[in-house]
């Protein structure tokens, strides 16, 4: 089992551009959560997807959107990038009924906005 995988590993964009990050959950998991981790900070919850619907959302602007596919993989899209979006973006997967027992995290995508 490959666990949670994310792509790409690193990404460099310029202000105003758009970016798509991808996440494949651990085998058997149906729920994907996305977090933004700025340098020196703890992860901040962006949103969670279950059954292809956004189930919960954190305090992030509409520039942040997502999608979950029938195979449970997920994408995070960020439009109109600005410098403050530079961060490590983490994806975590779980079973919806097991969310508070354990989430499995991916290695993250390091996004740099210039």
């Amino acid at each position, binding site marked *: 089992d490959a666990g*949670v995988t994310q792509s790409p590993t690193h990404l460099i964009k310029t202000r105003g551009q758009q970016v798509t990050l991808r996440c494949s959950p651990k085998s058997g998991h149906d729920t994907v959560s996305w977090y933004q981790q700025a340098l020196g900070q*703890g992860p901040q*919850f962006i949103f969670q997807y279950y059954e292809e619907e956004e189930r919960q959302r954190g305090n992030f602007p509409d520039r942040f959107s997502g999608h979950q596919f029938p195979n449970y993989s997920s994408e995070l899209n960020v439009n109109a990038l600005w410098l403050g979006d530079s961060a490590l973006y983490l994806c975590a997967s779980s079973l919806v009924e097991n969310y*508070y027992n*354990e989430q499995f*995290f991916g290695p993250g995508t390091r996004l740099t906005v210039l």
Partner: protein
Amino acid sequence: AQTVTQSQPEMSVQEAETVTLSCTYDTSESDYYLFWYKQPPSRQMILVIRQEAYKQQNATENRFSVNFQKAAKSFSLKISDSQLGDAAMYFCAYASRDDKIIFGKGTRLHILP
């Protein structure tokens, strides 16, 4: 709004010694979960230990144990017999039922050989 505070940005401990990481949180809920996550350098975040607020007994996982003080809203992590592999960022986290998980800013733990 719920908040999680880790007042120790960095800590060091001698190998084989015991260290305690502090965490306080603020909530008006009575039913919630508390977690300690470990993020090693350039490696994936993993769950170390979790506690359900309705359980009075402190959770333990091998060398890791917590001191959960519900009235004081305190949730500290004790690592016994510290090992070099314990070096990492440790995040305290909180979640009320059916709500998102909120993380603290973390404590970087150094293990001195």
